[in-house]
C-alpha cells in the first residue's frame, strides 16, 4: 500500500493546507520508514521543504547528505540553507574543475572540498549526484535527494550505498530522464536503469509514504488549474494566490501592433498565444524565432511591473525567460535577441527545469511541424515550458497544431510490464491548446 497524504478539497487557507503536508512529511522522517517521497508540482515549495527538512534533521542531531542534479542546483540549495540557517556547518563536495560561485563563497558556514574526508565534520554535505557517485565509502544516516524524478535509477544505484534513509523530493510532471542509446532489454524490469529513481524506488519499496505538496506558490491563479488539469490529471494542485493577488502592469503604452496586443493579453490574463500563419517549416523557423525574441523584448520595453504578495517589483530582463524544445532553436533565438541575449535567459525545456521567472515566452514544440513525434509530444516538455512563470506565459506557435494533433497516428509500441505513463502527451497538448485558443492574437500580416 502506498500512503498518500490527504490534501483535502481546494478550499480553505492554502498556506495551512501546505503546512499540514510539510508537517506530515517531517513527522514521517521520525518514523521507521527507510524512505519518504514528496511529489511537488511546479513551484510548490520543494526547495523550501528541502531546507526545512535539512534543518529539521540537523536539529535532531543527524548528519545528512544532500543530492542535487546540477552544480547550479547545488549552489542554489547552499545559498538557501546557509541563508536560513547560518549556524549550520555545510560542506560542498565538488569536482576538480568547479569554481565556487558567489552564492557559495558568500557564506562563512560553507566549506568547499574535493575529498569527502576534508569535510567529514560538516553536519550537511551537498554535492551533485555525479560527484556522490565517485565515492566508494562513507555513510550518512540521512540523505535528501532533490529533483529525484529527473535522476535516472542507475545513478540512484550508485549513490544509495552512501545513506541509510532518504527523503526523495521531485516533480513527477517534468521531463523523464533519458538515455543516448536505445535498448529494450530492460523494459518492464522494476530496476530498469533508464527509469527514474523514484519509480524504481517505489517499485521495490511500495510501502513507502508518498506525500504531495498541494499548493503552487509560483503559478498564478490563471495558470495553476490549466497546468494541473493538463499535466497532473490524477493529483491536482491549486494556486497559493487568488486571482486578485497577482497583477502584471505595463507601465508604457503600446503601438497597437500584434506584438503589443499579445503582450497586453498575457499581462491581463496570464496567457497569450501569438499565432503565426500555418506553414510547415524547418525547426529554426525564422519567423517564429523572430517573433519569440521580439515578444520578449517588447514585453521588456513595455516596462512591466509585477504586483504580488511580494509587493511591487519591476520585471527586469533577468525575470524573463524564453523556452524552446531544441538547442538549435535556442541558439537561433539568442542570435535574434542580439544584445538582450546577455540578460534574458533562453534555454531548452531540459535546462529550464526547476527554474522560476515572472514572465516566460515559449516557442511551442509543435509549431510548424507536419508530423508530431514522441519527442514533441512528451508531456513533460510542454509542462516545463508552461509552468515556469509567476505572472504570464506567452506562447508562439504557427496555426495548425490542432490539425496536426488530429492527424497524429497513435501507434506507439507497448512493452509488457512498463507502467502506463500519465498524462498522455497527446491529451496534455490538446488541453493546453484548448486553453490557449481563448488568448489568441494573430500576427500582423
Amino acid at each position, binding site marked *: 500500500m502506498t500512503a498518500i497524504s490527504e490534501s483535502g478539497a481546494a478550499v480553505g487557507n492554502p498556506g495551512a493546507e501546505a503546512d499540514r503536508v510539510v508537517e506530515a512529511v517531517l513527522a514521517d522522517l521520525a518514523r521507521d520508514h*527507510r*524512505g519518504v517521497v514528496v511529489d511537488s508540482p511546479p513551484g510548490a515549495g520543494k526547495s523550501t521543504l528541502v531546507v526545512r527538512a535539512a534543518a529539521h534533521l540537523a536539529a535532531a542531531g543527524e548528519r545528512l547528505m544532500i543530492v542535487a542534479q546540477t552544480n547550479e542546483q547545488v549552489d542554489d540549495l547552499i545559498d538557501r540553507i546557509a541563508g536560513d540557517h547560518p549556524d549550520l556547518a555545510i560542506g560542498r563536495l565538488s569536482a576538480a574543475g568547479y569554481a565556487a560561485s558567489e552564492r557559495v563563497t558568500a557564506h562563512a558556514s560553507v566549506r568547499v572540498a574535493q575529498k569527502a574526508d576534508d569535510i567529514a565534520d560538516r553536519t550537511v554535505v551537498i554535492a551533485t549526484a555525479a560527484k556522490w*557517485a*565517485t565515492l*566508494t565509502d562513507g555513510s550518512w544516516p540521512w540523505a535528501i535527494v532533490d529533483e529525484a524524478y529527473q535522476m535516472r*535509477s*542507475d545513478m*540512484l*544505484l*550508485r549513490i*544509495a*550505498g552512501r545513506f541509510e534513509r*532518504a527523503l526523495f523530493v521531485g516533480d513527477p510532471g517534468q521531463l523523464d530522464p533519458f*538515455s*543516448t*542509446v536505445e*535498448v529494450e*532489454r*530492460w523494459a518492464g*524490469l*522494476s*530496476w*530498469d*536503469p*533508464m527509469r527514474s*529513481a523514484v519509480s*524504481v*524506488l517505489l517499485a*521495490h*519499496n511500495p510501502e513507502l509514504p508518498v506525500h504531495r505538496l498541494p499548493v503552487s506558490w509560483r503559478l498564478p491563479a490563471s495558470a495553476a488549474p490549466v497546468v494541473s488539469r493538463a499535466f497532473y490529471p490524477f493529483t491536482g494542485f491549486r494556486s497559493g494566490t487568488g486571482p486578485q493577488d497577482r497583477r502584471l502592469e505595463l507601465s508604457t503604452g503600446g503601438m497597437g501592433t500584434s506584438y503589443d496586443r499579445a503582450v497586453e493579453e498575457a499581462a491581463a490574463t496570464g496567457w497569450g498565444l501569438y499565432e503565426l500563419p500555418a506553414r510547415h517549416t524547418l525547426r529554426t523557423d525564422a519567423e517564429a524565432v523572430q517573433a519569440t525574441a521580439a515578444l520578449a523584448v517588447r514585453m521588456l520595453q513595455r516596462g512591466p511591473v509585477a504586483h504580488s504578495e511580494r509587493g511591487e517589483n519591476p520585471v527586469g530582463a533577468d525575470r524573463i525567460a524564453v523556452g524552446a524544445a531544441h*538547442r*538549435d532553436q535556442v*541558439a*537561433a533565438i*539568442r*542570435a535574434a535577441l542580439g544584445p538582450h541575449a546577455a540578460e534574458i535567459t533562453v534555454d531548452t525545456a531540459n535546462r529550464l527545469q526547476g527554474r522560476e521567472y515572472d514572465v516566460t515566452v515559449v516557442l511551442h514544440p509543435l509549431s510548424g511541424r507536419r508530423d508530431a513525434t514522441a519527442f514533441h509530444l512528451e508531456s513533460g516538455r510542454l509542462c516545463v515550458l508552461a509552468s515556469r512563470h509567476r505572472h504570464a506565459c506567452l506562447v508562439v506557435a504557427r496555426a495548425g497544431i490542432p490539425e496536426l494533433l488530429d492527424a497524429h497516428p497513435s501507434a506507439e509500441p507497448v512493452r509488457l510490464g512498463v507502467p502506463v505513463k500519465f498524462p498522455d502527451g497527446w491529451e496534455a497538448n490538446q488541453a493546453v491548446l484548448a486553453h490557449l485558443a481563448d488568448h489568441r492574437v494573430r500576427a500582423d500580416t
Partner: protein
Amino acid sequence: MSTLTALAQLEALATGRAQPVATVRHCHLSEKPLVMIPLKLAGEAAAPLATMLGTDRDAPELLVVPQPRNRDLRFAYAAELAKAVLAHVEAERGATETLEPSKDGEERFRYERAPQIVVPNRGGVGFLRLLGRSTRFRSTEGPWAVDPAVPMLGRWLTWYADRNDRPGSSLLLTLTETLRLHWATGQSSLEDGNLGALMGWIDPPDGMDGPSAAARAEDPVACPPAGPTTDPTFDNEVLAPAIAAYDESGGAPRAEERVRAAVASQLRPTWDLAWRALDLLRALPEGASVPRRWERDRDSFTYFHREFAENPPQAKLDDAVRAARRLHDLERSQESYEAQRAFDDPLVMAEQRLAGQAFGGVVTAADPTRLDESGKRPKLRPHLWIRTEDPVRLDEGATVVNAARPGLKGRIVEIDGGDVLLELTGGMGRKLTPEAGVVPEPGLEVVFTSRTSDSWGAAKFPERDDTPWTHGGPPAEYEPADEDATEVWS
C-alpha cells in the same frame, strides 16, 4: 536524420542510384566472416527452419530442420550449427598477443583476430538472440541430454547478440544497417529494411536502375525475403506440402531432400546478395578509428573465450547492477563511436557543421606565438581567424577541437558574421612556442568541432551483493535450474 541525409536521398531519387553518406568504411570487415542466413518457422518465437552459412561464398553449408516441430530434429540442427559456429570461433582466433600487464600486475592477452559473423538484417540478430536463449541452459546429461556443443552455441550466440547492442562493435554485423550507414537510397528506412531492395538501389543489376531493382526485390517470388521470416505464399504452396510429404514418408531421404531444395531456393538469392554487399563494403577505405574499435571487440572476444570454461551461461535477465553497468558501457561506446565517426569522415562531420556544432573554413590570419600574460605565468594562446560559410551555432567561450588533430583544442573568442576568432588552448606542446606545423597557417582549410569524445571517466558501481535497498537489495544468486535445462522447446 538530417537535412544532409535527406538531400542524399533526394539525389538518389533523381539519379536512380543510392548516394554515399560516408566516405570511409565505419566497420571492421574480417577476411573470412561467417555469413549466416537463418530462417525460422512462421508463428513460432525461435523454431529454426534452416540456416545457410559459411565463410566461402562458393560453398555455403545448408542446415535444415525437415520437420521444425520435431524436437529431436531441432536439437540435431542446433548441434550441427554449434559445430559450425564453434569451428569458426577457433579458426578465427589467431595467435595470442601478450600485452603489458595491468596496473595490478595481472597478465593481459589479446587474440590477434576475432570471429566475425554477418547476418542480413536486424531480424537475424533477434533470431540468434532467441536461439541463444533457448539453447544455452540445456543440460548435456540426464533424460533431456543434448549434444555438449548445443549449450556452448547458446552462450556464444548470446554473447554475439549482446555485442551487437554495442555501438561501434563489428563482431556481429547486420548488412542492412551497415549498408545504410554508408549509402542513402530513394526509398524510406522501412523499405531499406529489405536487403534486396536496399542492394537494388546501391548496386542494381545490369540494365536496371535503383527503383526498378527495388521493385523487383519486393516481389517475393523473384526475390525471396532475407529472413528470418519466410514468405507466407512460399510457406503455404511449397514448404507445407514438402514438410507434409516428409512426415508421410516417415523421414525418407528423398522427402528430406525436397524440403532442403525448397528452403535452399529461398536462401540462395540472399546468400549471393550478402556476399555482394560485403564486396561493396570492402571496396571502401577503412575509417581511421576502425582498428581501435576492433581492438575493443578483440578484447571482449579474448576475455569471453578465455573465461568460457569457468563461467556459467549468461543469466536470463540483467540484475540491477549489471543493467546499470551495461547501460553505462553502451552510452560510453555510443558517444565515442559518434565522435570517432565524425573525425574519420568529413561527410559525417558535415552533419555537425550543418547543425552548427562544428564549422569549417579557411584560416585567414594567425598569431601562432601569442602569449596570455594575465596570469602568474605566461601561457601559449595563439589566435586563429577562420572564415567560414557554415551556419555556426556556438556561443562565444565554447570549447572546440580540430577535426584533423583532435588534440588541438581551442576556445571561441568571437564570432562576427562569417569570421570566427579562435584562441588555441592546448595540444601545441609544452613550450611557449608551438611545435612546428601544429598551428594551422593562413590559407589552410580547417574544421573545428564542439563535439568531443572521452568526456567520460570510468564509473563506479556497487558489487552485486551490495545492491542497495532502493533496488530491492542483493538479488538471489542464479542457479541453473533443472527447469531451464529441460525447458520445453516446442
